[in-house]
């Protein structure tokens, strides 16, 4: 994991600045771990039989895990998990997680749309998995150093 990346400064960030894109792998193990940490034990996130019985293609990731990964994309960029002040998403499609060692890939990109006062910037985020947008209207306000 790259933790050496320098945190961006507000002064050097402007509308149009692109955040470094990231890819996150999500395996069944990650879903079990997130279920335990979050307390969300909905069976569609770990039981293929029941997921398919309710019309899903396979087990799907918790929407909140996808949101958290895109949030991590922002906090890693800012260098501070407390830097994300506002953060909202629409869950446009599920992240389908196959039962293999690789799991699903979530690709996250983001662009600064506006410089705000108080060292804050507005960022638009996009998350895709298997070519499909899984988060839309994903926007955040991030405070930079």
């Amino acid at each position, binding site marked *: 994991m790259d933790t050496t990346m320098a945190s961006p400064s507000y002064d050097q960030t402007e509308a149009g600045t692109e955040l470094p894109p990231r890819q996150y792998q999500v395996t069944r193990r990650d879903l079990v771990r997130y279920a335990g940490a979050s307390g969300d034990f909905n069976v569609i996130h770990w039981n293929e039989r029941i997921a398919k019985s309710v019309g899903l293609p396979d087990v799907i990731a918790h929407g909140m895990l996808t*949101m958290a990964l895109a949030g991590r994309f922002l906090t890693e960029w800012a260098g501070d998990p407390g830097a994300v002040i506002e953060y909202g998403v629409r869950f446009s499609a599920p992240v389908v997680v196959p039962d293999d060692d690789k799991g699903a890939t979530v690709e996250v990109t983001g662009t600064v749309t506006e410089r705000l006062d108080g060292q804050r910037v507005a960022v638009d985020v996009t998350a895709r998995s298997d070519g499909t947008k899984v988060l839309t209207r994903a926007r955040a306000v991030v405070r930079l150093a």
Partner: protein
Amino acid sequence: MAINTDYVGRTFAPSEPYEVSRVKIAEFADAIGEPSPLCRDRAAAQAAGYPDVIAPPTFAIVVGAANSARVTHDPDLGVNYAMIVHGEQSFAHARPMHAGDVLVSQSTIESIRPVGSMTTLTTVTQIRTVDGEHVCTARSTLVERGA
């Protein structure tokens, strides 16, 4: 059965207090792969100006989880939980949550709207310390798919 629109504007009783712990923050950070020492190392968090280790921004969903379940499982609200998917979620943080916070959640039903064969239910939850300091506003939209 449709969701009971009489609930629009209703504010539920506040939740039981939730005590944020270092262990839970670290467990959550591990689960989402957040690598920051500010979620694990008290000295590092204090050096960054925080009172204790801080939670990632979506940790607020954990704090509000028991409260959310209480609202959506209210039998008179009439949500068919088997048909629910999470449509939208947002958080507005007054400050990061940190270990030692004791937080109370209180939800209001903002809207219940039919969208084709589906119904959306939007809830706004205020998360405050037991002393009344506002920490986070969470807005959640659930979508009940038509039967």
